[in-house]
């Protein structure tokens, strides 16, 4: 099993140098710190920033520099600021290469549900739909199962969709799974797990890739197996 940081680490390996990437709130937010020094990736924030850097040291926050999650951030050399229409042109126009989002549910066909939780009083969508519809490669990060142990990778989403058929790759604490036209393909399992154990926690049938392997993850990013 991977820790949250382990999931973020595994995603970071799949982001190529020179790519333009939007990170959602939660696990995706940990990815920036996982990149090796010198691997240049441009992080986009919906509120009009391209080229976000690490969080500022305490006391050095700039009142006018926050990300879409309302956290204070910094920018790297070569960054740019722009207005919302330009920012969402980047998203909807297919200019962002990767978006890494959290998910409540993912279906076998790539349907994503991540904007509306059951029983919430006030709904809020923010930029989630724009990202899910607009970005070329949607990566999802999440725990493989819900707190009650039920699978989050389902035959069909039961929660309201963020976007249909948008997810390309799923990164969980148990596995790396690709969404393909032929269904879900298990590419990697977390250290110590077998494909069968992953399948047991996944509703749709997984095709185990011929070269399915155990993830290479530093020891510090592994986690004790969860209750699920």
């Amino acid at each position, binding site marked *: 099993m991977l820790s949250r940081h382990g999931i973020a680490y595994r995603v970071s390996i799949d982001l190529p140098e020179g790519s333009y990437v939007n990170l959602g709130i939660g696990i995706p937010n940990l990815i920036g710190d996982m990149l090796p020094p010198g691997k240049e990736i441009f992080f986009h*924030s*919906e*509120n*009009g*920033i391209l080229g976000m850097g690490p969080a500022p040291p305490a*006391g*050095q*926050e*700039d*009142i*006018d*520099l*926050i990300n*879409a999650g*309302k956290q*204070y951030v910094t*920018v790297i050399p070569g960054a740019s*600021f*722009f*207005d*919302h*229409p330009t*920012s*969402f042109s980047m*998203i*909807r126009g297919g200019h962002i290469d990767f978006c890494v989002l959290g998910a409540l549910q993912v279906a076998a066909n790539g349907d994503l549900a991540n904007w509306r939780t059951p029983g*919430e*009083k*006030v*709904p*809020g*969508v*923010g*930029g*989630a*739909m*724009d990202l899910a*519809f*607009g970005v070329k490669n949607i990566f999802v990060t999440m725990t493989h199962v819900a707190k009650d142990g039920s699978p989050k990778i389902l035959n069909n989403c039961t929660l*309201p*969709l*963020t*976007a*249909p058929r948008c997810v390309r790759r799923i990164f969980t604490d148990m596995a790396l799974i690709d969404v393909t036209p032929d269904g879900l393909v298990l590419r990697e399992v977390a250290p110590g797990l077998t494909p069968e154990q992953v399948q047991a926690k996944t509703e749709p049938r997984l095709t185990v890739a011929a070269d399915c392997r155990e993830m290479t993850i530093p020891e510090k990013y592994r986690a004790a197996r969860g209750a699920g």
Partner: protein
Amino acid sequence: MIDKTLKTCAEAVSRVFDGATVMLGGFGDPGLPGVLIEALREHGAKDLWVIHNGAGQGDYALAGLMDDGRVRKLTCSFPSHPGNKAFANRYMRGEIELELVPQGTLCERIRAAGAGLGGFFTPTGAGTELAAGKETRMINGREHVFEMPLSADFAFVRAYQGDRLGNLTYRMAMLNFNVPMCTAAKHVVAEIDELVPAGGIDPQQVHTPGIFVDHVVHCARHPVLASKVNLQNPGRA
């Protein structure tokens, strides 16, 4: 001589009428017209239709306006921030109507109004509950949703520099909704950190040309906003 400066935010909001549609700029704190919103609270206009990305936070600015019971309808993308108690309470009692719009569609609808367009087709939302009841069309093999322009009677924004002609610049992440909102309302007011002479802004660096702005008010930022961080803060009085 053209002079769009006003001395006070009270003066700037004095024309707001009951039932008016009001765009409030900003995303989070950057670009939020906190002083104008407080002036609007003082002013007293009610039954307002507010267009803003969120529903405010804490008990200042928009959250305060909601708490005062002055907002009839809110068009936004993200009213569900945990700090939005003022909205959540009134919404759950059915006292505020909510129009929930994906963030990119929201800013594009505002831009469309400012640009004189009659609406547009966007892929965002097609097949989801936010597109329920909306016209859809297959374009280049993809389902699109028709969205209408969104205009307002008033738009209030916070900018960095401004001049007597209404030209504005923004610092960093202040641009956000402020640029399109300045184009989409009948009456546009910007509160600004610095008043510079005409020509004090390089013509290549004007973010909002003065043609879109009716008035600028030079004032310190809203105390809650200005107090949030200490360094790098042009909003401190």
